[in-house]
């Protein structure tokens, strides 16, 4: 069984959709604008914020009036994934949904939670409360895309994305469903703002080194069970997970590993690697963006060539390229999603 990626949609600091990401990979990005969580009086930090106004053209604004920024990003990315897959009539009703998040609807929840529990708001808004529940984005997606199969929300900080992909593949292999919409979402909040300022966190470590800003965004993929190899539809070849404390090491691939910069030492010299985090920023589930970038490279040979070593005859393109997307957590856990072009 192979899990083909039928389509991908995303929104981040670079814009919306696969075309926007491909364009961003081709050009040198602009320096990120300063951004600050509006409810914080702390100084602004460079951050790559996602704009979701495109969603208002896809869904009636009345339907969206109770949906917050966190869920809007996930909804937009999901819709764009359907467009990318030419599934204008929607997903099958029995499709599944897996949402990975590092911090959940934290920006919302932070506003509800006082520093002292005894000062909690006795007249809490039911809408704000509903949106603070960790599976709010999954609920909005399932309602608006009429997904009636299994739905799951995972919150394992940096490891949420590989766990989500593994779960989606498990469901396809079990025959629980034939199609899964799987993706990630994280939003800018006081927590990420504070991380960027303090530089104590993996989500912001690159930012503090003056390399990558913090970011936010969402990336969704339509995985389908298929026995047919196809060049048009890259597939998820494997999800690896391990921990450095037990000397687990990611496999060496024939093409490339996408990651954030601080992993260069971890990977060692046997891996060719590239980093696009400067396009979408650093945040716990940015690995979803890496998977989208890998997909862009596999779809467009010219983009892939730009990232590979050049020889006299041109870039060294392997016959069946495989790209790994690596995320390493502060605890030593790591995950790698391997995407390939040929399912044979």
């Amino acid at each position: 069984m192979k899990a083909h990626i039928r389509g991908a949609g995303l929104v981040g600091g670079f814009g919306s959709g696969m075309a926007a990401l491909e364009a961003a990979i081709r050009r040198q990005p602009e320096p990120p604008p300063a951004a600050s969580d509006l409810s914080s009086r702390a100084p602004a930090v460079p951050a790559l914020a996602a704009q979701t106004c495109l969603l208002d053209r896809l869904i009636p604004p009345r339907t969206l009036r109770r949906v917050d920024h966190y869920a809007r990003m996930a909804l937009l990315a999901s819709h764009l994934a359907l467009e990318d897959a030419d599934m204008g009539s929607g997903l099958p009703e029995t499709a599944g949904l897996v949402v990975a998040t590092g911090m959940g609807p934290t920006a919302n929840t932070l506003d509800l939670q006082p520093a002292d529990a005894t000062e909690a708001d006795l007249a809490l808004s039911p809408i704000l409360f509903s949106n603070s529940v960790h599976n709010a984005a999954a609920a909005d997606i399932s309602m608006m895309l009429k997904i009636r199969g299994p739905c799951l929300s995972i919150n394992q900080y940096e490891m949420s994305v590989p766990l989500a992909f593994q779960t989606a593949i498990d469901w396809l292999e079990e025959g629980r469903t034939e199609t899964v919409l799987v993706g990630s979402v994280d939003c800018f909040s006081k927590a990420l703002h504070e991380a960027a300022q303090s530089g104590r966190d993996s989500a912001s470590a690159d930012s503090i080194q003056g390399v990558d800003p913090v970011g936010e965004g969402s990336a969704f993929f339509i995985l389908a069970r298929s026995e047919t190899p196809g060049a048009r539809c890259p597939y998820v070849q494997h999800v690896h997970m391990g921990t450095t404390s037990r000397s687990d090491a990611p496999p060496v691939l024939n093409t490339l590993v996408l990651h954030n910069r601080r992993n260069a030492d971890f990977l060692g010299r046997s891996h060719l690697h590239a980093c696009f985090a400067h396009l979408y920023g650093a945040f716990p589930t940015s690995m979803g963006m890496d998977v989208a970038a890998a997909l862009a490279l596999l779809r467009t040979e010219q983009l892939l060539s730009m990232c590979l070593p050049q020889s006299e005859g041109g870039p060294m393109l392997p016959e069946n390229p495989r790209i790994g997307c690596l995320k390493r957590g502060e605890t030593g856990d790591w995950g790698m999603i391997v995407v390939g072009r040929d399912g044979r």
Partner: protein
Amino acid sequence: MNRQPPVAITGMGCICAAGRNLPDCMQALFTRPPAPAPPRSLPAAQHPVFEVPDRFLPPPGSRHPPMVRAVRLAVAAAEESLADADWTPAALRRKRVGVVIGTNVASGVSNRALQRELAGIDASGLSPAERFRTVNPAQWLARHFDLSGPHMTVVNACSAGSDAIGLAGTWIRSGRCDAVLAGGADALYEVTYYGFIALLNSDTEACKPFDARRNGLNLGEGAAMMVLESEAVRRGRGRRARAFLSGYGTASDAYHLTAPHPEGNGLRVAVRDALAAAGASPADVAFINAHGTGTRENDRVESLFFHEVFPGVPFGSTKGGTGHTLGAAGAIEAAFTIASLEHRKMPATAGFEAPDPELPAHPAEGPAAIRGTTALSQTLAFGGNNSVLVFSAGPDL
């Protein structure tokens, strides 16, 4: 949904307002369930809850940062379940053991340290990742017991505990793990407390599942854990299975953020898939542990569903003795379901006295004797999630 091999459950643990361990909980449910009271942690609050007495909890530990309440509950249940399964820490370290935990508060309470820091109350010195680790039960349990397999926290609101157990079954069947520690944990939390009041879903008195006078839920807190093992490992150890996870089904209503589908559409699919995975039919089901929150709508949907799909099959709710423990509920009630199979009787539905004439099916009067070896535990959740577990009694029964 394809039929799937059953997965052995070799150990269980539970802590909630009904008791500090699973035998105590069952004893309380069968004889004298506890009554709810206003929360001690929220002085101005009046809606009653089922709080776990502090004396039941393990100490917070000397590590920095210390365990939060939900993690302390998880650790207590995990220690009981591992002891019940006769796993020593050294033996666990030699196996690939995963952790899957459902919770609702997860990242929520991790924000308290940041809020306090921003408000100038104290300086925790924690990064967001460190704050996350202080409240993430799967991370804590993996580190606490030095487990080498994958670990995952499921945040599927009230069905999270059921989903965690169902997913653990997949991890075993796929060969990814030799054993999995799976369950749910949740602590009382002011945002959910006032949130349910805001949604008009919280009773001002003790909850009354399926009762004509039902007027909402009481929140609770607790944790339950199970040890699931591959057959190769279980047989190698010569361990008896307490029960088998035979089926897991889950489906979404795609209907409303906080209300169940009025016809129970997602629930029907989840039950159908769970039974198909178990190779069972409704006629095989000896009893059902209902979600039974005590809210008008949830209990109406479940009663209609039972009447149509499971006519005559006894069902009941244990939330009148534990409160609604949110992300832990599915796991706690799964443990009660298995323990009920072992006892060959199910607890009475605490709080149920006056049958609702508008409901077609009513909970069993209890404690009721169970005839059969297969039982269902089902949970309905915010976001429209419906998750159902099918358990079969161990071979010794």
